[in-house]
């Protein structure tokens, strides 16, 4: 599904290398987690995969189902099935959440050569999915993320994911800023979307999210590289011992 080979990237305008050769292979239906200390390059990886400005890829490749991601505009990546759940979802005053969702869904359908959803059909689908995530009508009406609590913002991300039905979902520290109940709700939303054809890359600092979204594979990232890969037990090891031991091991 997602194949990353030797990916290297600099922060533009600053002579700073962030990714120093990332290798990652996520098969269809798999859930991978990336853990790592602050500044290891986890979020940068998610931004580069989704096409954010400000980074320069200096080497390597990233492909989604064989298509070169790095060559596409962000909206093309989205239409190809990539989705990034933001660590800090952006507030957009003046754009209603519903308008935003419908615009996004229909833009992707159009890009894929499918018919746009009618207003009625869209409304039916969005209401049902919103209900599962305990997103009320008011949240759908309000401007995108404006005045939303941390939990509401993250639930709104998952709603977008549910509406857009991507095949490769990247969750960038979706647990940050969430209390235990909110995290459970978000995790349930994610788990409901798990399927044989859909893969996940879960970026997190903490093991606790992985109690709720069970990963198949856990990677440890440090200093722009994946330094260790293992099963779910690796996350527990981090939880118990911190990153220091792992980092020392590599050195």
């Amino acid at each position, binding site marked *: 599904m997602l194949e990353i080979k030797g990916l290297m990237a600099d922060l533009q305008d600053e002579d700073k290398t962030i990714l120093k050769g990332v290798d990652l292979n996520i098969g269809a239906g798999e859930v991978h987690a990336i853990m790592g200390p602050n500044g290891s390059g986890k979020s940068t990886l998610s931004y580069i995969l*989704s*096409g*954010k*400005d400000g980074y320069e890829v200096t080497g390597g490749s990233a492909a989604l189902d064989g298509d070169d991601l790095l060559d596409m*505009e*962000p*909206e093309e*990546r*989205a*239409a190809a099935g990539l*989705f*990034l759940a*933001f660590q800090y*979802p*952006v*507030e*957009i*005053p*003046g*754009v209603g959440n519903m*308008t*935003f969702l419908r*615009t*996004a*869904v229909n*833009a*992707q359908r159009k*890009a894929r050569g499918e018919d746009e959803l009618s207003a009625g059909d869209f409304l039916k689908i969005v209401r049902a999915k919103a209900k599962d995530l305990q997103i009320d009508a008011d949240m759908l009406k309000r*401007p995108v993320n404006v005045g939303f609590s941390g939990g509401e913002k993250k639930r709104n991300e998952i709603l*977008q994911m549910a509406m*857009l039905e991507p095949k490769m979902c990247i969750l960038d520290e979706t647990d940050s800023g969430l209390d235990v109940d909110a995290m459970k709700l978000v995790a349930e939303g994610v788990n409901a979307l798990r399927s044989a054809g859909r893969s996940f890359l879960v970026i997190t600092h903490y093991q606790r999210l992985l109690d709720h979204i069970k990963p198949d594979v856990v990677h440890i990232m440090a200093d722009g590289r994946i330094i260790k890969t293992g099963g779910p037990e690796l996350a527990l090891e981090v939880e118990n011992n911190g990153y220091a031991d792992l980092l020392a091991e590599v050195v």
Partner: protein
Amino acid sequence: MAVAKLKSDATEARLAGLTLPAGLDTARKDALSRLIATGLPHKRDEYWKYTDPASLTQADAPQAALFHNDEGPMFDAIDRVKIVFVDGVFDADASDDLAADGVTITRLSDVADADIHWATELYGTLEARGQTPVERPLAALNSAFASDGVLIHATGKASKPINLIYLHGDTGSDVMLHSLVKVDAGAEVTLLETGPAAARFNSVLEVDVASKGAFHHVRSQGRDHERRAVTHCFARIEDEALFKSFTLTVNGKLTRNECIIEMLGDDAVAHVAGACVGDGNDFHHDDTVFITHDALNGESRQVFKKVLRNGAVGVFQGKILVKAGAQKTDGYQISQSLLLDEDSQFLAKPELEIYADDVACSHGSTSGAIDEDALFYLQSRGVPRQAATDLLTLAFLAESLEEIADEALADDLRERLEGWMARRG
């Protein structure tokens, strides 16, 4: 002295070909005296620092190509009284009967034959009051020479909006129209103004709103790229009266919209708003607002939003004057521009002048580029960059459109804007 001489020469040249129309003789002569006393404006006048009035004051109107499109008329789905002027000339065939419940409508050019007491009394009066503390000579020019216009007297709640439709059919047309609105105590009327009107349009609107009356004004100035316009709206509002005005400006070489409001009664409310979309280095748009609070507990709000690209220039000069004794005034003013490139320019001069000690007044002015984070967020959800930019642009303008009380009118404007953006130009 050099400027004074330039101004008097320009005024003389402008007046050379003009004769005072019949009717309202005293008011017109008085207006002419006011104009001659001040002379036409010049770019060295402080009030015209950011907008060169030369093309508005020169003797002949600069040519303006006609803009053709296949769009239907604005507000077509709304039941309204249509009053059509083509290059300032009333078109009886295209117009509806000048009648609606709760309101009487007369043409200005008929006032000479009919004794319309209120109109004779109001014509030029608010314009004359509006000449201090700042001169507005182009409004005096209009009061003296306006060829036609509409007199609207709301005696109750008008059963439907009145739509002045200004069509532009001649590339060299030079038009002055002057309309009056009198809203009786407790009465209510909505005035719509649509279209470019002429190659050069000078419009004056005088609005007198009595106690508990309400006046709603929604205007869209057409899409002709080359037209020029100077408009003045003078309003006087009494106790608990409501005045709301919104203007949408898209295209046009030069637009100067002045709005001068005197809040003379307690608990009065005045909202003035504008949305402007300018594209190209020959686009210049100027909103100049002067609100005077002269009574207790007044609320005024100015909300102006401009989207500028490809070298377009936007100007905002907004003033709130709170006179001594106008306690508990709540004055708010915001002017913002979205600059879509580095060539475009926004010039703002917000002013507060306050002589009362128990008031809440605020003003803010910003100009900035499009929010790249929001743009990326939309793109990451599959919305192409251009569509995302349009969506954010409309969102930026939304706050000013929210000032329109009537949802159907606001929706019509919103849909037009979306369509215009999708079509570019």
